[in-house]
């Protein structure tokens, strides 16, 4: 049975009409002991039918450790959205519910080069000297979450120093503990710094500045 129904396929096809350059979805999966690996793979196969500029590359997480290393993948299912280069845009867990739009937004951004980062934001990121890793924890039913994910992915797209992950928390219950997630969205900066809610760009930048200063 198809995972995307007809109306979603139609809306997706329409949304992706604006694609300009090819986008490669690099999937890391595994046959057993992975919740939502199978569904995520099927989702991407079906997504592929909506636009010719989309490509899919599948890696087995266990046996293909070189590729996992190259893309910095540490849990599955994982998707890297790659264009002319790898911008560090990742999705861990299935991008379902409201997060499906975050996946489409990442694809469109990588394909068209269009983002909504402000002048001030660009200036701040141009000045970054150290690497910044953003993990945005989400639930597929959370309406505020895509905003945080899309912003993090835009920052990763713009800056070579920034990598950004969407992490669908229900697929990784142990991370709920590790990062003490009790509400979503929650953004974790370089493992140690936290930001609650869908914060505006300036606030995220300020938190990054703090994280770097005190690192």
């Amino acid at each position, binding site marked *: 049975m198809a*995972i*995307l129904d007809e*109306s*979603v396929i139609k*809306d*997706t096809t329409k*949304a992706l009409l*604006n694609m300009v350059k090819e986008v490669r979805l690099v999937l890391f999966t595994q046959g057993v002991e992975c919740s939502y690996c199978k*569904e995520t793979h099927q*989702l991407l196969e079906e997504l592929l039918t909506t636009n010719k500029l989309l490509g899919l590359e599948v890696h087995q997480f266990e046996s293909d450790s070189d590729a996992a290393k190259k893309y910095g993948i540490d849990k599955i299912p994982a998707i890297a959205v790659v264009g002319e280069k790898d911008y560090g845009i990742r999705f861990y867990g*299935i991008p*379902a*519910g*409201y997060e*499906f*739009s*975050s996946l*489409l*937004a990442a694809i*469109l951004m990588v394909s068209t080069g269009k983002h*909504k980062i*402000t002048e001030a934001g660009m200036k701040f990121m141009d000045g970054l000297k150290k690497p910044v890793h953003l993990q945005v924890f989400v*639930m*597929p*039913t*959370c*309406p*505020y*979450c*895509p*905003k945080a994910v*899309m912003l993090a992915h835009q920052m990763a797209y713009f800056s070579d120093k920034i990598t950004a992950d969407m992490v669908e928390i*229900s697929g990784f219950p142990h991370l*709920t503990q590790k990062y*003490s*997630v*009790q*509400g*979503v969205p*929650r953004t974790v900066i370089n493992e140690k710094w936290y930001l*609650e*809610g869908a914060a*505006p760009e300036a606030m995220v930048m300020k938190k990054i500045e703090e994280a770097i200063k005190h690192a």
Partner: protein
Amino acid sequence: MLNFSVNLGSDADSSIVYDLIIIGGGPAGLTCGLYAARYKLRTLMIEKAPMTGGQLTTTEWVENYPGFPEPVLGAKLAKDMENQAKLFGLEIEYEDVIKVDLAPKIKEVITAENTWKARSILISTGSSPRMLGVPGEQEFSGKGVSYCATCDGPFYPDKTVAVVGGGNSAFEESLFIAKYAAKIHIIHMLDKFQADQVLIDKVKANPKIELITNTVVTEFDFDQDPRKVILKNTETGKSSELVVDGAFVFIGAIPNTKIFEGQLDLDHGYIVTDQDHNTSQEGVFAAGDVEAKELRQVATAVGDGALAAYKIHKYLDNPEL
């Protein structure tokens, strides 16, 4: 079951003057958008969240919207409203309106990304959850204190939570949280609940939910283990503690009208309108929860939106404009 939601902005053109700009894409705005698009008004909706639906997206089931004897998912109802409006040509941009200039004939709506122009404006920015304003709340907001059950309810499997409030939202959302949590204490400051009787009956029949009346929360003492909510009985004045894993607050709403202050007449923050949804500024209309009125529901919001569209259509038809 998995579902997938597609919400991406249209490629609207900021160089044209729209007939109508709708600020806020909840049920009121979406209904106005549907009607306006059918009147063939060139209409742009600007929504700050990455999807339309407003408060509908923060609740699971809607049981009192006519036409759905089986409860309908809030998120689905919202998406269907959007699709219906788009079918007739409504354009939607996902940007946050930070400033407006409502006095001139051609009105301006300013976001971080663009300046949009229109001959008329509908304000349907709705409301946001009200905070209690007690110690510990802000500090633990998103870290144990939540305002959205569909977002954070699943974090409490087999846990104990407090729900603050006594209206429909508190009761409905408690029933949702009860799917995950083992124990829920609803804390209400009065001895009577404002929720509809059907909801009160359902909650009373749920063995997981306990009702605490005549009680206010004075502090979220979440710094230590175990976490405690500090309570005070309003009749006896006595304080007590309740050990919980987290808390949800549903004590009403505050209108999203900050950006209109000084340009429109407001009453306790809500926009003052006449029965035709005119605000104090010509060419500017308001609909839904953001209006000063008594009942704030999906059914009333869509009614407001429909009538406002009709009046906007008539207003724009005026040859002297």
